[in-house]
């Protein structure tokens, strides 16, 4: 059972579209998959056309039975979703008032993950207790990065946070997202970052109109635009990730 987190401290970098399409690919390749939408904006839930069940709140995430009761089957085989709720915006505060605040959510997520082969966590763009718990639970933390100068700083900040908190930095796997190869800044940044950071995944996701159109179609891009460059890129990313996960499991 593998837990994959999609995290970025910035919004609008392709975090949700990545989580959605990777979860879809995991399920399509035969794994029983659960995608957990932890972002109070609920973009993932929107893509999957689901709403949180009546009783579901932020507090439910801290109780195994209540979390499980909120899980819904998506329109796609083997893919389930634990939808977000607007009350998730107070999740950091909620955790802060509890003992073991840095672990509590992680443990509940691990409990829920038990019935699945893969769990994908779509994280909110904040660096608080929710993020801490996610970093603790995840086997791999994917970090989508738009290849600009500012993005380098974001990765550095994340590294620093990891060091300070004692998390294993090698679990961070940045990858380039929304890449526009005709832009010189993108090309240069990618070259520089690859030279200094071996954790970067080789695959990258291009800026792609079809990926942008996910909000209109409300489906993974691999469903409505299988032949697009975006779809092909996600597939490549997934295959590379599978190889990495297998290698880590062996070590």
């Amino acid at each position, binding site marked *: 059972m593998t837990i994959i987190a999609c995290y970025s401290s910035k919004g609008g970098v392709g975090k949700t579209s990545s989580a959605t399409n990777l979860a879809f690919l995991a399920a399509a390749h035969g794994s*029983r998959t659960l995608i957990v939408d932890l972002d109070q904006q609920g973009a993932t839930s929107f893509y*999957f*056309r*689901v*709403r949180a*069940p009546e009783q579901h709140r932020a507090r439910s995430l801290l109780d195994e039975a209540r979390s499980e009761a*909120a*899980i*819904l*089957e998506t*329109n796609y085989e*083997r893919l*389930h979703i634990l939808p977000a709720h607007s009350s998730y915006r107070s999740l950091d505060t909620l955790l802060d008032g509890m003992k073991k605040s840095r672990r509590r959510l992680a443990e509940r997520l691990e409990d829920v993950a038990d019935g699945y082969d893969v769990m994908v966590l779509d994280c909110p763009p904040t660096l608080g207790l929710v993020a801490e718990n996610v970093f603790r639970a995840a086997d791999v933390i994917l970090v989508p990065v738009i290849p600009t100068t500012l993005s380098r700083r974001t990765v550095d900040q994340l590294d620093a946070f990891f060091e300070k908190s004692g998390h294993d930095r090698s679990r961070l796997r940045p990858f380039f997202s929304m890449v526009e190869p005709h832009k010189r800044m993108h090309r240069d940044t990618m070259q520089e970052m690859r030279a200094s950071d071996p954790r970067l995944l080789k695959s990258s996701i291009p800026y792609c109109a079809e990926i942008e159109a996910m909000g209109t179609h*409300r489906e993974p891009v691999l469903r409505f635009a299988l032949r697009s460059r975006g779809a092909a890129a996600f597939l490549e990313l997934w295959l590379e990730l599978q190889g990495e996960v297998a290698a880590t499991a062996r070590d």
Partner: protein
Amino acid sequence: MEDAARRFRWQSSEDDDDVLARSLGDGILLESGEEQRARLELLDTFERTLVCAGHALVRDGAQLLAVRADDLRSDAIMGVATRSSALFWWDLEPGPLQDVLRRHLGLRAVTPLAAVELRSLEHRVSNEDGKIVARLRKDSLHVDGRKLGCSVTLLPLLGYEREARALATSLSRAPAFRPSDEPLAWLVLRAAGQDRLPLPLRPGLRLQPLQTAQDGVTRISHWLLRAARQHEPGIVADIDTEFVHAYRVALRQLRSLLSLVKGVYPEDDTRRMRAFFAKQARATNRLRDLDVYLLDEGAFRSTLPPVLQGGLDEMFADLRSERAQALRQVRRVLRSATYQKQMAAHEQWLSQHSPPTGPRAEEPIGAVAVAEIRRRARKVLKVGRAVSDSSPAEEVHQLRIECKRLRYLLELFADLFPEGALAPVVRRLKRLQDALGGLNDGAVQERFLGEYLKTASRLDPQTIATVGGLIGLLHRAQGEARQRLRERFSEFDSARVRRVLARRARLGGAA
């Protein structure tokens, strides 16, 4: 992720999707996938073993697969068969399908029982967000273009149980749909007129202690005769060896009953029936013996080193041609007008409301059962005590016969005693019979091989050596078997057994 508890199923005579949409109520949006069609042949044994176990063996063109009897599609296990007619588990190539069949079939063969065209269509029910909240699968069965039945299954989605229940309620209320748990495989069998299960050999009647002896015996006899006869078509078609076996077992039980519980009919009638059924059973003796040898071929061969295997080839080839001849003879008998007429007459005699009575006819069957069991048990002890290590085979054989008689009575009349009352006796009797059986099998094999050596038309030195070697092995095993027999008999000849028979074999005042 589908499990049976979460399925809802209805049957309908309406194939029309409009009817389905209307039955679901207003505001429900149905979207359909593509209709899938498959020509399926359903195979199973005489006893419908697979479907009763929840599996369905189907042939879809050249593909052979086991699926769930429920929906004829889930949990598909594929395999390859080396034959296309009656299939035994060993006719499949090793693999998961062979494993499934080996677990369930035993010595039975499966034959094609029904051929249908299965048309399946999946509908999706979505909410206003475009989220699928339930799936409805419609399966319809067609033969020669004619629709035979239609089944609608509701497949809920996790988290949308409320929506599923609402849909289920609508369908259950709709006049065109009838809730039904029936697996699709049974629908197919019913459409082909193949859904009747055979009569079990153990009569499904409960005897009452105060029933008259004649009433009890007549009912059971009639059942056993019908149970025997239902195997005749299978014997004639030579589907598998179990048909002859079951036919003989039923007739044997019938004859045992008539001989062990005498006096319920006039002596002449009892004698007439016993003679007739004995004759019919004898007609199948040779065929059954040969079947048993041929079934044992693998075991026989594995006891011999490779160098002697060649010698067995000829022997088994001879056995096979003899078996073909024996089958021809049995077929002639079963198909003859005489046999059919006589059997029908006996069936009719046993279904009379008041058959002619004998001296014990009116006695309560409870009392009769106790008396006979005690009598037979005393006989077993008497005969068994006289058997020594040097006793000839006939004496041991006699003991075996007496044990069978007692055993049969205990099983036949089990209903009349409190649960577990006679268990100590039955347990020890079974163990004694096991020991006798082992001894007997060895002796029969030895004798058979000896005869074969004497009467076979062509014998080469290799065959003689092989058969001689086998006889030697069997002879040595006999010594061990005798020892075991002694031990088991003394377990039976014990104070415990005597006590149970004296006291427990009692039926609330009927003893």
